[in-house]
């Protein structure tokens, strides 16, 4: 299965990203959106699968922001 993922950065401060992943993205895992390392907060399927492709939205937050919110 190939996961076509739309990464949207919470807060709108950074642009998002679209890319194929070959392992299922999971909440809590980290991903690079452009040069920024982010953590996945939420994942949802946005349209039915087609062939080998699954279509997902992932809401992410920059790791640095998430650390400061945890403090």
């Amino acid at each position, binding site marked *: 299965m190939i996961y076509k993922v*739309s990464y949207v950065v919470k807060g709108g401060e950074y*642009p998002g990203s679209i*890319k194929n992943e070959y392992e299922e993205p999971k909440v809590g895992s980290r991903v690079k959106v452009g040069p920024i390392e982010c953590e996945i907060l939420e994942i949802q399927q946005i349209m039915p699968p087609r*062939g080998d492709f699954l279509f997902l*939205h992932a809401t992410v937050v920059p790791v640095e922001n998430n650390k400061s919110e945890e403090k």
Partner: protein
Amino acid sequence: MEDLLQILRRVELFRDLTEEQLEQIGKISKREIYHKGETICKQGEPGDKMYVVSLGQVEVMVRDSKGNSYSALYLGVGQLVGEMALIDEGTRSASVIGVDDETVVYGIPNDRFTALCVSDPEIGYIMMRNIAQDLSFKLRHRDFDPSDT
């Protein structure tokens, strides 16, 4: 050629093409390597080809009417960029820049792609449908509001 076919098989743009049809796409695709910060195509210039990202990420930069540039989107492996100029025959709507030190894309010239679609209408139908679905996905991405979830 087999390496290229392996890459093309994992790109949604080419979903549902047969191996023979993929080979025809492979014959008109050319590998291009860019480094971090290098321009792949420039906003306002004629668009003579579309690109499939094979390695690394590219940054889509838009310059507004006041001359300010902003980063609109990053596109990673398997994504299509530069297809709007193929569809509407207009100039580039954005600049595209390599993000990683080794950013690899496959360029598909518009004229050769169009000729292939005309000579094999099944390729033309499948590819145009897949391009439309990719544009739809990009619109959903742009319109997504995390606060709605």
